[in-house]
């Protein structure tokens, strides 16, 4: 069965394989009013197809949460378009409410996101009430709550409904929030670091749940994370974000087996596992969206640029890295990376293009 609910476009209006979610050149500028304005999301193309899990990975401060909030309709894009099923996010309250029913959040911190004085039942029923789902479907609220809890792996539901958050483990709290999201019958889940505050042992069980929801309900998931292992565990496609932009994207296996962008390479090398790669620990602070460097926005921290000719970056290329604005990566199902060095290598005679040019 699929989780398609009322509010979707007319049947057949969506061509096969067209994206459920599409971001087109989305910019979000935050702050201002005296404070320096932050270009938190600075030109992002991104698509999530039906039944697809897409991971958006990057360091803190790179704009993941802002992007997630934009997709949820909680943050207006400064420019660009956000579409679900080809329909642009509107501005009226009714449009926003319909949108939020189709697109639901799984938050980062389950403990902070649950009201300690409300039972599990109340937490899950809230969305049902907001969207008046019992009246619309003619089903009892308690049945809908129980169904959502069981889908989220809290079985039997009766054992959980009367409990308070303090009586649950971290993993159970995250399942309650997932149940609350599922209850309204969304098509897309936006999960912001869904396991980063959970114990290692719980992490896999929550990720397995997201995979199962995709398989059983056909849900799409946009998962925002700093953890490339999470992408390996559940994502069909991976987009790597740096300072408000997607700098590399593609099928997860391809991006992680053969990362093209020096930033992706560095990020992958510091995943603490078996020491497969020589760690490239980038110095300095996570980048600042109020002061985005000219040229390639990664250039001040780029190990390839720092290594110079040894890494294939001659003087000419180095000058371009520091000054030339890179085009946005187009939305594409293939493996793409925004890096002048990669472009130069791909164009060098006798050097087969390492990144297929399918923009």
């Amino acid at each position, binding site marked *: 069965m699929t989780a398609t609910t009322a509010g979707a476009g007319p049947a057949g209006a969506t061509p096969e394989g067209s994206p459920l979610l599409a971001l087109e050149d989305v910019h979000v500028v935050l702050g201002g009013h005296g404070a320096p304005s932050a270009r938190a999301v600075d030109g992002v193309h991104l698509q999530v197809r039906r039944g697809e899990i897409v991971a958006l990975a990057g360091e*803190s401060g790179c704009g993941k949460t802002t992007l997630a909030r934009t997709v949820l309709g909680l943050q207006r894009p400064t420019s660009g378009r956000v579409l679900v099923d080809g329909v642009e996010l509107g501005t009226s309250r009714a449009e926003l409410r319909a949108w939020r029913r189709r697109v639901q959040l799984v938050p980062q911190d389950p403990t902070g996101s649950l009201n300690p004085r409300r039972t599990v039942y109340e937490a899950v029923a809230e969305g049902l009430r907001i969207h008046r789902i019992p009246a619309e479907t003619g089903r009892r609220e308690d049945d809908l709550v129980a169904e959502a809890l069981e889908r989220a792996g809290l079985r039997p539901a009766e054992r959980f409904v009367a409990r308070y958050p303090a009586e649950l483990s971290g993993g159970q709290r995250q399942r309650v929030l997932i149940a609350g999201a599922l209850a309204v019958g969304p098509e897309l889940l936006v999960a912001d670091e869904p396991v980063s505050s959970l114990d290692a042992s719980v992490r896999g069980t929550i990720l397995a749940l997201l995979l199962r929801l995709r398989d059983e309900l056909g849900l799409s998931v946009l998962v925002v994370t700093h953890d490339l292992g999470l992408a390996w565990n559940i994502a069909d496609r991976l987009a790597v974000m740096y300072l408000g932009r997607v700098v590399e994207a593609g099928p997860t296996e391809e991006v992680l087996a053969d990362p093209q962008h020096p930033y992706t390479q560095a*990020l992958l090398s510091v*995943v*603490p596992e078996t020491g497969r790669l020589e760690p490239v620990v980038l110095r300095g602070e996570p980048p600042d969206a109020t002061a985005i460097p000219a040229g390639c926005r990664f250039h001040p921290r780029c190990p390839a640029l720092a290594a110079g000719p040894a890494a294939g970056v001659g003087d000419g290329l180095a000058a371009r890295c520091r000054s030339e604005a890179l085009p946005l990566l187009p939305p594409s199902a293939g493996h793409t990376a925004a890096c002048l060095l990669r472009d130069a290598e791909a164009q060098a005679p006798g050097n087969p293009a390492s990144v297929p040019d399918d923009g």
Partner: protein
Amino acid sequence: MTLLQVEDLHVTYRGGEGDVPAVRGVDLTVAEGEVVGLAGESGCGKSTLASTVLRLQPAGARVTGKVLLDDEDVLTMRWGRLRAVRWAAASVVFQGALHSLNPLQRVGDQIAEPMLLHEPGTTRGTAARRAADLLERVGLPASRVRAYPHQLSGGQRQRVMIAMALACSPRLVVADEPTTALDVMVQAQVLDLLTGLVADLGLGLLLISHDLSVLGSTCDRVAVMYAGRIVETGPGRDLFTDARHPYAKALAAAFPTIGDPGGRLSPAGLPGDPPDPAALPTGCSFHPRCTVAVAACERRDPLLRPAGPGRSAACLLVGEDGSPLTGTDGDVPEELR
């Protein structure tokens, strides 16, 4: 040389509904220049153990066993001596401490404070100079002594906490979940810093984390704790890549090896929750969650025993040479049945 030697440590909290045995017989050593990891799920007793190293456990907790710092038992030493040992012999970076910096005090002053309190005769000027040196030592510009905590990022605040831990030149540092709230690149920076300090200063480091992949890549030795006991020890890398105890295996599998087809689209988790220390299961405390448990596991409480060179495990189904005994009762050695 051994800096820290914990012997048969038991810590029991008094709860409203009875005793909570948080640590139940732990042995652990940390030598100079050594990084020892302590892994396990939340609630298994890691922070409790860390607090006993400087006798900082909550009042009312009952502690037995020995905690030897340079052969002196912290648990029985006099107050005056304990005061001298804190900061100077050993220091602890507590879990979540980066959030507990005083928001109204410049970080340089916070780093200098232990020197002024614990090193009689230190002048303010000297302490301030040393605080600036320490900031540079942990990779921040000396000028940041004037910063307030809110002006620093999470990674920078954790560096300040590490500088503070080094204030009185201790030989042992205990770092409780120092990278848990940080993201990967900053985590890598902080781990680099800690292992660099061990190499340069010959410190002993007890590194606590729920993430076995972090410990595996950083530690000389790792101990995995479950329900107040150590259930497996061995070289760090081996524990992550080739764990023997079923719990340690599950913890290691929680983080996939990127590129390994086994973890691709199949995240490995450990279902169930750790036991309530006030109501532990019979037999092996892991048996209700264990996928290979046999009937004997419900009855016998396995103690840590050798499991191959340099390794030990507390599981009925791990042989003395570390080889797995098959999951049938018949294979469990006679004396363990």
